């Protein structure tokens, strides 16, 4: 059994436990979906649910209360170093 100790490097607060953060998704709709109705359907209900590296947003709810962007591997929950950043304003 692998015991998980997930931490996120917050640009403002430093390395903090993942429980302090709330997860936010960056929705992605494939460009090949061109029909407006299909895009609406996709936006409302469908998920890419990528198996591998995803870029996503986390909100430091119990810290600086700012959003950050990071890359995470959904297969392992690994967060490669130096991937966290604030978004460009």
């Amino acid at each position, binding site marked *: 059994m*692998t015991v998980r100790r997930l931490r996120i490097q917050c640009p403002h607060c430093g390395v903090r436990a993942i429980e302090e953060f709330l997860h936010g998704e960056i929705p992605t709709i494939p460009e090949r979906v061109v029909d407006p109705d299909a895009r609406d359907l996709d936006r409302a209900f469908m998920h890419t649910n990528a198996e591998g590296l995803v870029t996503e947003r986390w909100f430091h709810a119990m810290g600086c209360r700012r959003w950050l962007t990071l890359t995470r591997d959904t297969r392992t929950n690994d967060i490669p170093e130096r991937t966290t950043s604030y978004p460009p304003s």
Partner: protein
Amino acid sequence: MNEFVERLVDLRWPDHVRPSYDVVIIGGGGHGLATAYYLATRHGITNVAVIEKGYIGSGNSGRNTTIIRANYGIPEAVRFYQHSLEMYGQLEQETGRDLMHATKGLLWIAHSEAGVRQERARAEINTAFGSRTEYVDVKTISEICPQLDMTGQGVWPIYGASYHPAGASARHDRVVWAYAEGAMRLGVHVHQRTTVTGFLRDGDRVTGVQTTAGPIGGGLVVSAVGGHVTTLASMVGLRLPIRTHQLQAFVTNRYAQAFGPIVASSGLGVYVSQTAKGEMLVGAEVDRAPAYAYDSGHSFLRSCAFRSIALLPFLRDLRVLRQWTGVCDMSTDYSPVMGFTGVPNLLVTTGWGTWGFKAIPAGGEQMAALIATGRTPPLIAPFALERFANDRTMADRGSAGTH
């Protein structure tokens, strides 16, 4: 290995892979094997392959908390799960195997006035659509489950509950083995340690699967995959309303007293039952961020233990024996997705996030009927993928117990 287990395992593995089958089912878990079983037993379709990446039941069929119930919040779901619950009641007789099926009764506890309204509504809608659930007051609750702390440690007071007498549990591995055995006896091929790596296509049509054991043709291909269904679907450009989340659970050492019912609380996000061995089985909600990992965390243990002790103080004196993680396919509207996909010859049965084990008999039976007849049976028609495009979502978040 005792006599019982030896008697149980009579699995006739195939010695070769045919170049093609009438039906290829991806995923050797409960749903995939039940579909194969009902195809063989009810419809005489035995030229069927079940392709499993690991060993049968190694995914979520072996990682769930084995609870069987029908106390859902929308009519379509109550009918479907009630049918499944009744099939579970007959399954030991049908398969001739002891599945350790035990009817325990399920208490779903309300800690607030909003919770009371929800449990009252659940009782009404269950009764109206063919299941049985009643709203019970505090006095009845403590008669059903004397171990409950009615004050909830002063923080989570118990105001009432809905009681679902038919709530049951069964041994998940044995359900998987019983279906596999029944299907294989009639000639279904189950190929373990075989991974599907892609689809064979003829234009839009799916004509089979590419696997680590070579290409396998299929008249119809059914995805009964748990966890990786969106990855599989993306190989044919299909988008699904599914996100995959980890769900963790643990069992304690043996509790020396009998603990009768299954106890669930949406407010606290935990559910507790006792296994046949006497261990207390505690499950929780899914982790928020989508992930496919099977790792477990200490923070889950800490928060889940804290919340379950608020309900059942005796748990404080027990020790955590083991802990595990499964990955749940959570659909956008918290209901399963079954049937046609829009891609010719490709069917799915998915979205079994936290309600898949209890649905195995009915899900398998209905998918088999759909495959055999080419028409969607009325019981699962509301759960078709096209419901999202038709603005007919089956929103039932309050019945997931684990979101």
